[in-house]
């Protein structure tokens, strides 16, 4: 069971979190301006490295913050985790 460091609450068991996938695909500011190919690349193509991976998790059973986690997909080692924004709201 992974131990994920919530930047707000501290280390918590994986069961308190839900997974959000690749952190490297922020939503385009103006989707209408993208070609079908570009939109598809954003929507469907993901970083899928065998190694360190930046990903999103939500501390859904705790503070409900979405956080960033850098984790090694081969060893599962959590390298670091961070607050995504000086999140103002939600």
């Amino acid at each position, binding site marked *: *069971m*992974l*131990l994920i460091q919530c930047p707000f609450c501290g280390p918590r*068991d994986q069961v308190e979190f*839900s997974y*959000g996938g690749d952190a490297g695909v*922020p*939503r385009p500011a*103006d*989707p*209408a301006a*993208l070609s*079908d190919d570009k*939109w598809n690349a954003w*929507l469907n193509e993901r970083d899928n490295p065998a190694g360190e991976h930046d990903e*999103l998790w*939500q501390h*859904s059973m705790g503070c*409900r*913050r*979405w956080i960033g986690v850098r984790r090694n997909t081969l*060893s*599962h*080692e*959590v390298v670091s985790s961070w607050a*995504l*924004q*000086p*999140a*103002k*709201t*939600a």
Partner: protein
Amino acid sequence: MSGSGGASNPMRVADLGRIDRTRTLSFTFNGTRYSGFEGDTLASALLANGVRLVGRSFRYHRRRGIVTAGAEEPNALVQLGTGARTEPNLRAPQIPLYDGLVASSQNCWPSVDFDIGAINETLSRLLPAGFHHKTFMWPTSGWLTCERFIRRAAGLGHAPAEPDPDRYAHRHAHCDVLVCGAGPAGLAAALAASRAGARVILADEGSEVGGSLLGERAQVNRNDAIRWVQEVVTELKSAPGVRVLMRSQVAAIWDHGMATVVEQIGSGAPVPTHLPRQRLWKIRAREIVIATGAIERSIAFGDNDLPGVMLAASARTYLNRHGVQPGRRAVVFTNNDSAYHAALDLHRSGVEVAAIIDVRPEPSGSAFDAAIAAGIKVHAGHGVLRALGGTTVRAALVAPVDVSGRAASDARGTAFPVEGDVLLVSGGWNPAVHLWSQARGKLKFDEALATFVPDPANRPPAHVRCAGSAAGAMQLVDCVVQGLAAGRAAASDAGLRHSPTISAPMVERETTCPLLPVWQVDYPEACRYKRFLDLQNDVTVADVELAVRKGYRSVEHMMCHTALGAGTNQGRLPNISGLAILAGAIDTPIPQVGTTTFQPPYTPVTLGAIAGPETGLALDPTRRTAMDGWHAANGAVFVNTGLWRRAQFYRQGRERDLEAVNREVRAVRNGVGLVDISTLGRIDLQGRDCAGFLQRIYINDFATLAIGRCRHGVMLREDGMVFDDGTVTRLGERHYLMTTTTENASAVMSRLEYLLQVEWPDLDVYLTSVTEHWAAMALAGPCSRAVLEKVADIDVSDAALPYMAYRECRLAGVPARVFRISFSGERAYEINVPAGHGRATWEAMMAAGQPERLTAYGTDAMDVMRIEKGHFVVGPEANGRATPGDLGLHRMIRKEGDFIGRRSLSKPGLAAEDRPQMVGLVPVHAREPIPRGSMLVVEPRQVTPYPMEGFVASACFSPTIGCAIALALVERGRLRKGQRLWAMSPLMRMSVEVEVVDPVFFDPAGARLRG
């Protein structure tokens, strides 16, 4: 010392062992009653009673006896207990004896003495490894017939036929240092860590601390080693941060220092009802010390599976720990020093040691010297070619061998028998590296031990280290020193700065003679006799060699092909020997052939312990609404929606299901009904930017929603498919309330939080789930206002509360929110009250509505009415593959601006003309039903595959329309109104001709909504 143990325990020695002779326990094995003592295992008690034959082997059904004294036991697997508490495949050495224990042999019929399956042995040449791949292919049906027989022979013990009456608990724990194994190394590690101030958990699968010291006669501080063990335990148990778990096996090491430990509760007999039978500890440790010791291995020789062939150290354990002599006259066969200790202990207890057969040409060292001094004969440079005997060992056939274990070609001439009723073997030791491997630690080959040991240079990412025999230290003095060092280092790595000085206890170092790596005794006629590597799966040296000849040369292929190591002991005994023989056959050094990795668990763990309390009814929590108790008391038939249970309908008297639903529908359409909709998700939105936010997540317009007004909204996923729908009410200037579908409530919440926190953090919007705070009910039907008037303290006239408006008020004295929203197509009011008042409000409404014959209705009636109204729902129509256009929502889409999913709507596939579109269906012949889940085709009589034009999403009988109706998704459906199709359900053997109609069957103008 004398070897007389009394008539009932003929093999028991009088003054040895850690058993309590004042407590006699009686037990039954294969129908015969025996007795043993507290402190015995089933295996030791059987041996004490002189029982040799305990089971039959898997493939050839050969006779088998007890070989080891631990988890590695391949043969003595028994069926324990009877009835619902029976358990298959338990290892006799691991079963603590208790009074009334009942056990029997497995895999034999009619009995272990006479077993029909033994015929397999005569056929054994036809059944080499992998035989089944080469046969049974012609005729095609041949395999299926044979498979049935093979299958019948499968398995070992039998599963219980009834539900398990026992309970299993889970338990979390945290510590700085987890020590696995309480032998000398583990004890030393725990002591050092504890003295450094660490929180320590020490877990051992045995019932007593001490590990192998319990079965040896070692000295520590010039005293019995057990004295030292007890001192350490006393100190540990009194230290504040230490927890000692006995009968607790570390079953697995997972990510990030998480270890699971299975604790057996009680002594083995059924536990009292307030206790769980087993407890799964989930321990999060900063540091882990593995001190699980080492496992003795064997050497392969002819017929080495005869009952009476036993590992030397195990025999020693039975003697010293349980006071049981494994035989009267022992022959000892070894390639290393450790068997000398066994021989010496046996000798001292009065067992005659016929000879020690040592493959090493020139053994030496303190153990050797002691054996010579004791007058034991040693045949150096010799090996055992075969075990001789019929049902049990009678003698060993011995001949000179070279350093690779090969006997000369004239072996038959030089061979001589050495008589004995027990043949003790030691082929060296394998560190118990399972947990290290599970933690992803790497192994390296140790030439001196001729085995794999943990490679300290390649520690796993989880903070794990090994100590003692598990790390390859075979002398007690090294185990203790390593243990202390490991405990100290672990505490320090766990962040404890205090570093105590502990002086190591005094242990003498032995002088030793190196092991000679011999894996099998080979001689010219060897192929005539089976030389077993894996006793459980009947895998022999010849099987491995055959696999190699056929090209299965990687370890994994060889093991898969031969089933070596696939038994319930997971290859604890045979793996390294198999590997060595494979290496020999392909002429490659062992380390290059590789090793197999161990997967959890360490030894098999009950499914019950893994599941813990979260199974059966508690597999998932059941969510209940505030009115749940009322529903239950009023005939509700419940249905699961996600985790919720909801009233599907309320049965009155002997009504049939459909009658009840029809009655409820009519009650709403003609009068008034009340339905519990508490399960819908409710999200409270506050902040300056709520309107803008809603605009970005819904396809329709929310900028114009006025305070006190409600609006239906539809959300998409980014791929353009409809995600969810619900209503939004503007409660105040900066305050909104959103509802979601029951099933998507948490997914929507999480998605919205994501958008606000990650994508649009500049928006000032706060989301709070208030699903649980409110109990919600909908009052629907032409008479709904009449009922509402009686309980509300405000004006609810259509002028004051028009369609899609919202008011706050008190209802039956309780603060309430009233929304005039409708799903059924009737005049309707959704009412929210604080959940604590839910049931009282519901009851007050039911009472107030009596004159109007207010009827409680369930989800089925709600579903019928929404189908009549042509409302799609998430699931049947919005099935994750439907666009808003497909569902007829194209006109709802806002002209301007981006929203989630908009970009995808213009993808060619989503904009295509031939997409399915939602339509209504009615049967052409009004009395026919429309089968649920049917597929739509143009022509009913064709050959498969049929071209399918669409599918029936929701179908029901409409008491309002008076016939079956359905919502369907049909290719170009909106253009096909008036056309006929066939609704086909081959599963129900039905095909019904239907006509495509508008999806709104009832009150298309919506006149009833507004009243």
